[in-house]
């Protein structure tokens, strides 16, 4: 029997969309190529030869953005809780201590209380006090959820508000690396989303990491009667008379549905539709990263949660010209969330911007050597930032843009998707919709909100074409 909806991908957006549709009696199936859920924010384990046993890691989780306190209303996270019928307590959130934007000439701290960032800006950039207030006001009043908005350059808009270039670079750095598909700039609506989710609302970490979130979603989906199939790779999206009618899997099996929601990316979706439907092929995004994860024998001595490090007066946000760019990094100390247990090992994660093409062209032996080089560079940065942290390294894991591509099938290991977004989720093919990253809302919270709002708009409210 045909389904009401097929969802391609069991990442954050696919699972959230699935919950919404299943909740209201739709017959839904999620098709996931991997053998586990989570997508770009999944989990894995590494065997530890010296000590025996395995170590669990999260692929992506530095921070859950959009932190709210229990009972806070009218925020993205509270909307998400209501829409998915989850409770705040389910997430067991540990708020961040504080984070830091670290440039050579200045540092700015921020936390889940916007006043800290305000006072830091007032102290370091007293002449920009009114400018910063105007920016915050602009952000507050902007309706970033308007689905009809087109691309607007953030740098062009900000240049008229923040007149000190250093402050501008510092404010932009975390927002770019936590959510821009565009090189050196970002869409202004995306800037507003990121400003609110990082600076107004802030960071937290669910106890147990990303596994907790994924389990909540998978369980809620099953509870509502949704069907989830792993190792089910969608090869083609089938159309009839300009309308999507189903999919064909790699093994030849065909499934039909009224609506198809794809979370695999706009270019990756377009590639699977017969020629002639998409006038131009959407562009594959270039922003991809390298992540080094270090496990030490004790917790970090510094109490920052995330350091956005940049060793230049301007912030270069673009693919590295030489495999990876150590000029800047995100350094995450996942142990430095409040009420986190204090004994035991300490973890440090270091993210560099990377260059997909160069990593993809490496042969195996060179690839391993290059990863070792990255780890050495990241370790040196940890020493530089936290000189009193004299812990012994127990375990290192590095993953590259090709690792990301291998396990998520995002072309070129792109993390923030295409620069061609489809904000209302529509595609040139009727009944085929884009959810998640390439709809325009990204990050863990953003992707879930994307799945929710697209499922509402196209799966629940509107009659099929």
């Amino acid at each position, binding site marked *: 029997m045909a389904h009401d909806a097929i969802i391609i991908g069991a990442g954050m957006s696919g699972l959230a969309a699935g919950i919404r549709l299943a909740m*209201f*009696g739709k017959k839904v199936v999620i098709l996931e190529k991997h053998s586990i859920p989570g997508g770009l924010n999944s989990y894995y384990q590494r065997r530890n030869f010296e000590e025996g046993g395995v170590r669990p890691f999260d692929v992506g989780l530095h921070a859950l953005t959009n932190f709210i306190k229990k*009972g806070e209303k*009218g925020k993205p996270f509270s*909307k998400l809780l*209501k*829409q998915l019928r989850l409770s705040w307590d389910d997430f067991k959130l540990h708020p961040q201590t504080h984070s830091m934007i670290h440039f050579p000439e200045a540092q700015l701290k921020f936390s889940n209380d916007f006043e800290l960032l305000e006072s830091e800006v007032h102290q370091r950039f007293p002449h920009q006090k009114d400018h910063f207030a105007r920016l915050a006001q602009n952000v507050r009043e902007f309706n970033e959820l308007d689905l009809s908005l087109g691309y607007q350059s953030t740098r062009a808009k900000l240049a008229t508000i923040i007149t000190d270039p250093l402050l501008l670079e510092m404010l932009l750095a975390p927002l770019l690396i936590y959510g821009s598909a565009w090189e050196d700039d970002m869409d202004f609506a995306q800037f507003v989303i990121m400003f609110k989710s990082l600076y107004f609302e802030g960071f937290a970490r669910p106890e147990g990491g990303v596994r907790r979130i994924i389990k909540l979603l998978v369980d809620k989906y099953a509870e509502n009667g949704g069907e989830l199939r792993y190792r089910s790779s969608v090869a083609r999206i089938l159309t009839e008379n300009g309308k999507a009618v189903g999919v064909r899997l790699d093994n030849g099996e065909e499934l039909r549905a009224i609506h198809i929601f794809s979370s695999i990316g706009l270019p990756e979706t377009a590639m699977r539709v017969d020629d002639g439907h998409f006038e131009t092929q959407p562009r594959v995004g270039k922003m991809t990263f390298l992540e080094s994860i270090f496990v030490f024998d004790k917790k970090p001595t510094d109490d920052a949660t995330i350091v956005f490090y940049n060793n230049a007066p301007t912030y270069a946000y673009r693919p590295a010209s030489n495999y990876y760019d150590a000029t800047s990094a995100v350094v995450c100390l996942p142990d430095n969330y409040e009420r986190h247990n204090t004994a035991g090992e300490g973890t440090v994660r270091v993210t560099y911007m990377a260059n997909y093409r160069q990593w993809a062209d490496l042969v195996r032996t060179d690839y391993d050597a290059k990863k070792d080089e990255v780890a050495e560079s990241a370790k040196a940065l940890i020493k530089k930032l936290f000189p009193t942290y004299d812990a012994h390294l127990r375990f290192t894991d590095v993953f590259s843009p090709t690792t990301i591509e291998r396990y998520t099938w995002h072309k070129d290991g792109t993390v923030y998707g295409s620069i061609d977004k489809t904000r209302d989720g529509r595609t040139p093919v009727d009944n085929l919709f884009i959810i998640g990253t390439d709809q325009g809302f990204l990050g863990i919270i953003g992707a879930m909100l994307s799945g929710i709002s697209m499922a*509402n708009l196209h799966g629940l*409210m509107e009659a099929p074409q």
Partner: protein
Amino acid sequence: MNQEQVRQVVLNIISDIAPDEDMTTLKDEVSLREQLDLDSMDFLDIVMELRKRHKVEVPAEDYPKLATMASCVSYLTPKMQ
């Protein structure tokens, strides 16, 4: 269903959608949005729950009729006979 029962149906739905809201002081003539933290997504849920639980269809053009508890009751009662 009589008006009192329809009112209870709507109350039950809202308390499932927004479990943190205090409904004991709800004024029937004042807009629900003004008194409770409900946005357009939540109104969609009210409509979807009416369909799921009571097989009542509320077309999109009638959403404004759900603005207050009193208008919900007068709009829905004839549909729930």
